């Protein structure tokens, strides 16, 4: 799919700029240009496809759907799935949480959405596709959705409503399924397309800097971290490596764009894939800034339980990945 791009960058770096083939600088530049452009193209395509899904299933309609139907367990899958396809912004997690509670959606289902949303999003998918390939990306996405479902289901079973902060609990007690129908826009696909294009471009524009910085850091690390570096110091194969990686990751926060190029270096330098992925999910999915945001709606105890359950599920998927790809 990207042969043409590789040829183009070859020409640009070696012919037009006249850099020698095989030098450190020229290969780093080649790597950076090729990866960045490839990932930006993928990012645009993915956001564009998600834009189409969102035009027909905006989050308001998802809420409406989840609050009205009895779905016999399928609601966990749907919440998690929509968490994956809805463009994610950490600043939206609180309004979304309250909105779901207000709509009478069970807490566990809301958690399923909340867990998957940062883990599987447009930026993460584009970067995984560009750096690890299609098969891996699909497994990652599926794993993220399952992880959200499992965490949500466990949290749902724990009956945690009493641990919401007072004013949110009041909302929860008064919650009712929205009766009003979501206005269905009569516009056709072709009429919507310009909006979808414009929105996709604006999302790409808003993350392009992070993506480039992330790839740049990754490219620099490739050059400076020697083969087997982590293995030598971290005993990366030890059984406790996965939980250790996740626990180290939770206090760190970076978005997917920043951390995926780094874990690609981890993998290239000898840390097992599952351990690296678990680290990445800990960084992206759980963080202290997020905990501070959630403090407005949850008591500390609930935040601790939420983080604990999700941490356990991330550790489980770390082992799972190591087992599948080991």
């Amino acid at each position, binding site marked *: 799919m990207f042969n043409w791009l590789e040829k183009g960058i070859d020409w640009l770096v070696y012919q037009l700029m006249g850099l020698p083939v095989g030098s450190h600088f020229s290969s780093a530049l080649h790597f950076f240009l090729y990866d960045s452009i490839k990932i930006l193209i993928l990012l645009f395509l993915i956001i564009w496809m998600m834009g189409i899904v969102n035009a027909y299933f905006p989050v308001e309609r998802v809420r409406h759907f989840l609050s009205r139907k009895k779905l016999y367990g399928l609601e966990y899958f749907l919440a998690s799935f929509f968490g994956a396809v809805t463009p994610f912004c950490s600043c*939206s997690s609180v309004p979304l949480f309250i909105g779901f509670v207000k709509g009478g959606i069970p807490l566990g289902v809301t958690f399923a959405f909340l867990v998957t949303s940062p883990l599987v999003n447009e930026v993460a998918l584009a970067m995984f596709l560009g750096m690890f390939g299609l098969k891996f990306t699909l497994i990652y996405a599926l794993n993220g959705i399952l992880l959200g479902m499992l965490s949500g289901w466990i949290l749902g079973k724990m009956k945690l409503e009493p641990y919401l902060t007072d004013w949110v609990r009041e909302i929860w007690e008064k919650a009712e399924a929205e009766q009003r129908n979501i206005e269905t826009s009569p516009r056709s696909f072709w009429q919507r397309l310009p909006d979808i294009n414009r929105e996709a471009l604006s999302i790409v524009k808003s993350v392009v800097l992070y993506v480039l910085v992330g790839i740049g850091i990754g490219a620099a690390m490739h050059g400076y971290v020697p083969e087997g570096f982590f293995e030598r110091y971290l005993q990366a194969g030890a059984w406790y490596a996965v939980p250790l990686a996740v626990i180290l990751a939770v206090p760190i926060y970076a978005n997917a764009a920043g951390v995926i190029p780094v874990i690609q270096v981890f993998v290239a330098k000898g840390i097992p894939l599952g351990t690296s992925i678990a680290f990445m999910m800990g960084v992206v999915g759980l963080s202290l800034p997020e905990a501070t945001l959630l403090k407005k709606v949850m008591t500390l105890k609930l935040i601790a339980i939420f983080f604990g359950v999700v941490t356990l599920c991330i550790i489980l998927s770390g082992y799972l990945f190591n087992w599948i790809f080991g």
Partner: protein
Amino acid sequence: MKNIKILGTGCIKCKRTEELVRRVVEEMGIDAQIEKVEDIRQIMEYNILSTPAVVIDGIVKIKGRVPDRHELETLLADVQLA
């Protein structure tokens, strides 16, 4: 006078939205009072699920994203006539 509220808990996107709204309003010379609402309870009164949002005279016009300049100009031109 128009009343414009920007709803957002203080993330980068919300700040960008506020800056853009202020700039466009000034450029178009609209007589408007612009407010940034950061309190989550007040934000939730507008029944939105994602921020940032732009509310003009009590009606949510944009939610969940930073509007682009052209879109905002069209929107403000419409309310100016109303």
